[in-house]
């Protein structure tokens, strides 16, 4: 009897082990593939941004013969990038705060409590996910203008906070559902009111979800340019991605400066993300402890 079991167990095992080995090799290749496609294009553009226009055209894969910052100087000279930075920061930060706070509040109510309009509201807010900016560009412009938001940073903040509404809602609701109900019940027994329960107990616990959705909302606001172009007209209200368009105008053939400008727009996003990553990590650790 034992002998039979052994034979039956051994045969699938050999094939199975081979499968596991193959998967290990594949996963190494997979990780390498991910690295190449994520970093490759960016690295190439970064290195090329130090080359002259001529060099970019004639030798695409070599290192620059002379590492020059001329393109970066040109990029800053042709477009008021420094002005745009400030606006992008204000808009992105404000959007993130508004979006995360507003949605952590409403998602809590929608996730936890059953009431008459709940299903309707959930679907209503979820609809925002499906409405592309391109579809509503013109009515949105009209609306914003009527409300007095045209050519204001506040207008941009309101739009971007709304654009990130569905994503934040999904993330927060998903997360709230993993918080055990016992915590709230305990708080209730202790005599805490609705507000106290939320702000003192739930809100701090939701940090990982807020960090994640905050990062996404920030990125969304930082990179958006189509609506920014439509809703602003003065240079004093313009944000960073529009700088990229300065280099796509007709009769423009300076690839070096275009690459440099792309880098200038892109690198801060990466730096901010790396910094906020630490927040996410510390939030994750705190979250894990809640057990």
């Amino acid at each position, binding site marked *: 009897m034992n002998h039979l079991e052994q034979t039956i167990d051994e045969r699938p095992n050999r094939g199975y082990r081979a499968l596991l080995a193959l998967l290990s090799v594949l996963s190494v290749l997979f990780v390498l593939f991910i*690295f190449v496609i994520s970093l490759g294009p960016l690295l190439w553009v970064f290195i090329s941004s130090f080359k002259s226009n001529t060099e970019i055209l004639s030798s695409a894969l070599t290192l620059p013969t002379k590492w020059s910052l001329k393109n970066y100087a040109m990029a800053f000279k042709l477009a008021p990038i420094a002005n745009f930075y400030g606006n992008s920061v204000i808009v992105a930060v404000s959007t993130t705060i508004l979006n995360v706070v507003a949605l952590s509040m409403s998602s809590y109510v929608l996730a936890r409590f059953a009431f008459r309009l709940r299903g309707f509201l959930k679907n209503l807010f979820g609809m925002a996910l499906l409405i*592309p900016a391109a579809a509503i560009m013109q009515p949105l412009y009209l609306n914003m203008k009527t409300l007095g938001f045209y050519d204001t940073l506040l207008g941009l903040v309101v739009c971007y906070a709304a*654009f990130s509404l569905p994503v934040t809602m999904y993330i927060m609701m998903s997360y709230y559902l993993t918080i055990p109900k016992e915590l709230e019940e305990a708080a209730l027994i202790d005599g805490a009111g609705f507000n106290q329960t939320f702000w003192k107990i739930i809100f701090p616990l939701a940090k990982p979800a807020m960090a994640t959705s905050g990062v996404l909302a920030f990125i969304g606001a930082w990179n958006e340019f189509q609506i920014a172009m439509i809703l602003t007209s003065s240079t004093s209200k313009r944000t960073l991605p529009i700088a990229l368009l300065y280099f796509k105008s007709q009769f423009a053939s300076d690839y070096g400066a275009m690459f440099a400008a792309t880098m200038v727009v892109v690198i801060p996003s990466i730096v901010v993300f790396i910094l906020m990553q630490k927040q996410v990590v510390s939030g994750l650790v705190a979250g894990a402890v809640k057990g």
Partner: protein
Amino acid sequence: MKRSVNYALYILPTLLLFLVVYAVPLVVLVGTSFCSWKTGGHLTFNGLGNYIQIIAHDDVFQAGLRNNVIWILLQATVNVAIGVIFALVLFRKPFYWKFARTVYMIPSIISSAAMGMLFVCVFNPEFGMVNNIVRLFNPTFNQNWFMSYDTAFATVTFTWLPYAGMVMLLILTEATSIDRSIIEAAIVDGADRLQLNLRIILPLLKNIIGTCVILESTSMLKKLDIIMLTTRGGPGSTTMNLPMFIYKTAMVENNFGLANTAGVLLTLLGCLTVLLINKIFSVGKEES
């Protein structure tokens, strides 16, 4: 304070945001989709005229719709799968995991406008990175990736399909909050890595995977920047999608009535997608 008043107050900020940015434009969108409206022309009611014209007679719209559906299917499966697999690989916390996490997020962080520009240059047939690497082996290689009929669709798809940074981040975040004792118990029981992933971890992540599938599928309804910067829907209509169609109809032909009709149809496609995915995943049901 009465409970329902509390609820209302908490929901109010979000509701305001929604009303201001979406509600009014939505009403205008749906309303004008039934009308004939071009710049300088008057708004005249047209019944289902726009809808019939677009669905039955406009082969560019049909191509865009077909492509969009294919892209939704691909994104919902391949893209999410790549994100999940990478998250699971990183979940093991190999020595490079923090670095890998940041690296993979980078394409998702930089704007799609920047990505579009990057790819246009990377795939440029004369001086782009890709062709020059291939020319090291085959000196006469000259493929026009974005504009030749046989590679256009695949190249455009490549600009977003393997990039699942957001999925990875969401899955990884959720996975880290799984009770470690479950995992440890399984390892003690003799489960190897594959069984652990397939039988224990993945099922626990069902909710967040469902969320990711929804988010990634619906992102296909918004891909305008990349297409505009690379192919504008060409060559012919091989890489046309609905947002690009809407943009062309509104901005180029100044036919806002028709564009809004397409916008309504686009939204309906999205609703359908979400409903289907919800059915498959039963997302949002509270896990007892």
